[in-house]
């Protein structure tokens, strides 16, 4: 888990049973969409210039999954909460997160081929790890990832490379856009 961006992550027990049935019993987990960890790591180690970032995945279907909560006050109507993130603990969570990311990449592949390739081939849950042959090829993926996720109102965060050149040009650009803080 990434400590710098996530202080606390709530995991809901969606297998908790009520009258003998849990949420996970009645929803479909979907199929496993994430790449094999081994494959992702091999791609990450394949070329000299390594690139890493993580994706902040947000679900836009909040209204479809809400919880009612009244904080033990049984004499009032419950408050309605909806989620702005994928809910951990739901058996379909991994599929949802991967599907959102991969479908988004597929739709925008013509505009951002490098970023799309990484999302589709070299991403494990919210971690993208990849590598390119040389420094010069390391900065273009950065642009593409940023633009790709901006299109969905999401963010590629914590961009790190082993190449000082790539990191320097990233910093330069962030500074030019006034974004050097808080990343």
């Amino acid at each position, binding site marked *: 888990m990434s400590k710098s961006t996530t202080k606390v992550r709530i995991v809901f027990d969606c297998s908790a049973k009520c009258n003998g049935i849990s949420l996970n019993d009645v929803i479909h987990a979907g199929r496993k969409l994430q790449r094999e960890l*081994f494959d992702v*790591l091999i791609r990450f*180690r394949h070329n000299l210039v390594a690139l*890493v970032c993580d994706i902040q995945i947000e679900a836009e279907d909040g209204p479809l999954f809400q919880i009612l909560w009244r904080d033990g006050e049984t004499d009032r109507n419950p408050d309605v909460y909806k989620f702005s993130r994928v809910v951990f603990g739901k058996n379909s969570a991994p599929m949802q997160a991967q599907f959102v990311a991969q479908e988004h990449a597929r739709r925008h592949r013509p505009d951002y081929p490098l970023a799309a390739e990484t999302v589709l081939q070299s991403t494990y849950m919210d971690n993208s790890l990849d590598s390119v042959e040389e420094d010069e090829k390391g900065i273009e993926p950065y642009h593409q990832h940023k633009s790709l996720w901006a299109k969905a109102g999401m963010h590629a965060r914590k961009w*790190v490379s082993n190449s000082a050149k790539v990191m320097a040009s990233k910093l330069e650009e962030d500074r030019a856009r006034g974004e050097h803080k808080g*990343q």
Partner: protein
Amino acid sequence: MNIRDNKDAVMTTLRLQWKSTEDILAVPATPPPLDYSITKRNALKKIATVFNPLGLVTPFIVQAKTMLQELWNRGYDWVEEIQDKVANRSQLWFLQLSSLAYVKIPCCLQNQ
């Protein structure tokens, strides 16, 4: 992440430690406390904490796996304290776990 302030930035990516500036992977592990009782259950528990998806530390892990196998062959129960010579080998292996932190795996073996 600010690389200017973190020259030796170590980040954890997919539960592997990656020292990005030197492009080195590490597989750190914590040895158990000295009074850790060696049972089949405890041995397995500790061995399983070493995350080894790329097989980089397999030469070390495999020693522990053969020890476990031996414990099975000798018919130990899950919670039974191991009393024979395998116990010593296990102790030694557990001690060496801390050395795992010193193993650094560079990315490419070719000339750069």
